[in-house]
């Protein structure tokens, strides 16, 4: 314990002496220079290219649309070829697919999943229920207008939409990311 404390005391002095700030070409990570460099230069295009080709989605089957979501992730549709891979942990996922009705009871859990996902992250509204409430749109237990809660990029209508529609949604999302029009990345 003492050792650590001592080192903490000593370290600033060493930095002062060496003065990393002065070395040309070296950027300290505690400045905003790195994030400016990543966000405002052409590097962003490269990053976006990488991001759009690895849209791992959260397997979060909520309503009956969830079945289509699961089927999309399976071998038949083979979404791996687009870099779209189902993940079971929100910490691995880039895309949250709201696949069904959001009940008042489930909304806090969904928000929690969303908060656990590392940025940049995107939302797809999949199915009528997620868009407007669908068949349950005047129910006492569903939450309407879910796009006021999450920054939704793509809406997929249908009850349920087909798996191909979900793949197209991913393609649309890729186009949006490429054009820097998406809501998930902070530019």
């Amino acid at each position, binding site marked *: 314990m003492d050792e650590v404390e001592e080192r903490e005391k000593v370290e600033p002095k060493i930095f002062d002496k060496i003065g990393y700030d002065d070395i040309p070409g070296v950027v300290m990570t505690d400045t905003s220079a790195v994030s400016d460099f990543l966000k405002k230069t052409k590097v962003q295009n490269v990053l976006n290219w990488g991001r759009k080709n690895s849209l791992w989605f959260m397997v979060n089957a909520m309503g009956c649309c969830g079945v289509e979501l699961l089927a999309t992730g399976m071998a038949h549709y083979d979404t791996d070829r687009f870099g779209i891979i189902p993940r079971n942990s929100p910490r691995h996922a880039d895309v949250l697919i709201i696949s069904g009705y959001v009940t008042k009871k489930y909304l806090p859990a969904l928000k929690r999943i969303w908060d656990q996902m590392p940025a940049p992250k995107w939302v797809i509204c999949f199915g009528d229920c997620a868009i407007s409430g669908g068949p349950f749109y005047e129910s006492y237990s569903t939450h*309407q*207008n879910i796009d006021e809660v999450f920054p939704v990029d793509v809406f997929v209508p249908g009850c349920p939409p087909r798996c191909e529609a979900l793949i197209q949604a991913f393609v649309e999302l890729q186009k949006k990311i490429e054009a820097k029009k998406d809501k998930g990345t902070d530019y």
Partner: protein
Amino acid sequence: MDARSIIASLTDRFPEDIYDADVESDIRTVAKVKPENVVDVCRYLKDELSFGHLCCEFGIDYPDRNEIEVVYTIGSYEHPVVLNMKAVLPRDDPQIRSVVPVYWNANWYERETYELFGVEYIDHPNLKQLVLPEDMLGEWPLRKDYKGYPNKTAKNLV
């Protein structure tokens, strides 16, 4: 035992508590029960008349009559007769004894009727909401005068 003799036996045994008893067909019977003695009636049904299976228990709201009916649908493994038994409760303060001591599976039915209609079950082992979120208790969403439906039309209605 056929439907007629079952209803006869029930009304003979509980002349005070059973009223409006009727035989609708060979397999369908209806009766109304006084809420105070529903447990005794259920015990008699189960032990003596071999109505061993509580298929369903739920509520119906009648705002114009100011009543809430609790309906017990009870079937049997021995004979083909189904009994629809109703207990009429006042709408302002619906209280009834729980039948969990007789039919254990009434537990969740009663919790659901409680959260949706506000029927309070006396002596229920664990009377709390079943599937609704806790903060919706007290809204009683399946009562006919429930006003909590989303009042703004969904923006993205497809």
